[in-house]
């Protein structure tokens, strides 16, 4: 019975995802795409911080490596003017290389990431943000400096993710860049989510969770703790890189200032709000944190205490930030499993009502003790 409900639920979600570009405005599609990119990045951070207990404050750095890596690999070099460099590679290859480059960047840092843990790693990774910002602002031929540089659109087997040349019309809806990217984003998110789920439920996931819960026990059980920490760090960097590529494609312009400390912290907020250690938690948290500011902006006139755009008072963006700051506190205090944990508990309560002879309760929420 519950299996049928699960299947129905997924069919509904899939239908909603396919129909969405036909009904939603461009601006909503863009927000949705940012949320998908954030979800991919958050899954990566959740593998590292949620499942392995390794705090990273430098996740935004790997997003930046992915984004600028893609732009550099895909751009055709300009001779005159600013002298922006590039390799002019085919865009899918550039995207793959950008993800690998993020992995390499993570690999360079992994000797440190493998040996530090908890808050110490958090502080060490913080350095990445500042180093990254300095490099991005000064390596003008690669990154375009403070103003960033335009992103070459993705072209997959002759199919361009752009508004031009001819507007593709499906069911009366013009399919521009955002509509096309929507499906690319969904495919990437589903792939990234399934891969992470496989990792978490398999042999590496058990080792990662035990490193988080009891490092000494993990070592004694035969897990090479240092190598595993380093490996998870590289994997998490690659997820960050993929998220960066997608953000660059949606944004169409990469700006160094975007990949700062605020972004890194918002990724931590996503996994805490959504639920530490699970793929679904990362996705829920990413959508919550990325969609909240736009929801507030769109409906600011209907919300109390939020001033409409252009007027005095607490603006929508500030209100959203206050709310998600509040959400972090509330989740940490009252919902140790995050929003996803709340959802699982509600579902368990519902199924228990329909089937009174259910077995022992299986929902267990992470306690603060098990997080470090």
């Amino acid at each position, binding site marked *: 019975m519950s299996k049928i409900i699960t299947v129905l639920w997924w069919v509904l979600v899939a239908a909603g995802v396919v129909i969405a570009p036909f009904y939603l405005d461009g601006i909503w599609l863009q927000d949705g795409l940012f949320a998908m990119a954030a979800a991919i990045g958050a899954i990566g951070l959740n593998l590292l911080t949620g499942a392995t207990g390794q705090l990273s404050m430098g996740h935004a750095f790997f997003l930046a490596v992915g984004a600028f890596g893609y732009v550099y690999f895909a751009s055709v070099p300009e001779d005159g003017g600013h002298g922006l460099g590039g390799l002019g590679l085919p865009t899918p290859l550039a995207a793959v290389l950008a993800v690998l480059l993020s992995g390499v960047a993570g690999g360079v840092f992994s000797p440190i990431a493998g040996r530090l843990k908890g808050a110490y790693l958090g502080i060490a990774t913080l350095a990445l943000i500042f180093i990254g910002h300095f490099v991005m602002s000064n390596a003008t031929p690669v990154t375009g400096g403070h103003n960033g540089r335009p992103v070459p659109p993705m072209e997959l087997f002759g199919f361009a993710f752009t508004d031009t040349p001819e507007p593709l019309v499906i069911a009366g809806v013009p399919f521009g860049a955002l509509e096309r990217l929507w499906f690319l984003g969904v495919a990437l998110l589903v792939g990234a989510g399934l*891969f*992470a789920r*496989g*990792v978490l*439920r*398999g*042999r*590496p*996931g*058990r*080792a990662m*969770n*035990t490193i*988080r*819960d*009891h490092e*000494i*026990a*993990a*070592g*004694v*059980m*035969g*897990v*090479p*703790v240092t190598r595993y920490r380093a*490996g998870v760090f590289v*994997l998490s960097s690659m997820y960050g890189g993929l998220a960066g590529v997608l953000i660059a494609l949606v944004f169409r312009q990469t700006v160094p200032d975007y990949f700062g400390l605020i972004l890194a912290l918002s990724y931590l907020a996503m996994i805490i709000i959504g639920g530490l*250690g699970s793929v679904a938690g990362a996705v829920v948290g990413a959508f919550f944190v990325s969609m909240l500011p736009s929801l507030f902006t769109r409906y600011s006139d209907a919300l109390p205490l939020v001033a409409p755009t252009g007027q005095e008072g607490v603006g929508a963006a500030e209100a959203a930030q206050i709310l998600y700051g509040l959400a972090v506190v509330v989740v940490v205090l009252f919902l140790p499993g995050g929003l996803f944990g709340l959802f699982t508990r509600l579902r368990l309560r519902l199924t228990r009502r329909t089937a009174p002879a259910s077995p*022992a*309760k*299986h929902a*267990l929420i*992470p*306690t603060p003790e*098990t997080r470090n």
Partner: protein
Amino acid sequence: MTSIPRLEVRDVTVRFAGLTALDAVSFTIEPGSVHAVIGPNGAGKSTCFNVLSGVYRATSGSVRFGDAELTTMPPHRIAGLGLARTFQNIALSPLLSVRDNMMLGRHRLTRAGFVAAGLRLPSARREAARHNARAEEIAAFVGLTERLDVPVGLLPYGVQKRVELARALCMEPRLLMLDEPVAGMNGGERRDMAELIMAVRESLGISILLVEHDMGMVMRLADAVTVLDFGRLIADGPPQEVQNDPEVIRAYLGATSETEEAAS
């Protein structure tokens, strides 16, 4: 079944800053025997365990398991040789099911890495199925079959202790090290655990190193007993001999001070 090597501890000394936790301790665990290490609190029993499993580094001395020198190895390499241990204070993942905790014991015997597990490659799935079947056998042996899919954190203490043992057995050890397996248990649970340890020894024929405070259990199970006091070895031999050793009686009962008091 691979042969069980002898474990030889030679002149192992461990110092933490000014404190000498183990002072030139030597003993040998014969293949297939149950060897108990006993002593009052703070005698260095757990330190000894941590040196054998690679958690602590010995300041000097050597530990040989067959041809391998353990004192220079990291814990995961020692685990790779077939030394498995349990923890006095339970060290399981409370959120993972009993099955997943036990499957962690199979880590050294399995190969699936990030890519194989992430892509669910057929090789990884076959491997998982094969080792899962063995974990279920071990669960049946230890009496955990009904609890396999329950998160460990929801189980009572006595059962968690059994999960610890089951996880160690999942490593297919050649030397099983049990750190106070019945500490904090009631009478019935103690009896069950003692029977289980006997059954492990009879069915697998592996060496067992036991650290325990329960003297009745030690005397019943052990073939040899090593007694530590303040980091020094004060007796080593068969249980009956050790039991009557005046040095041991003094360490446990403080006979010297009592006689001193009586004299004064």
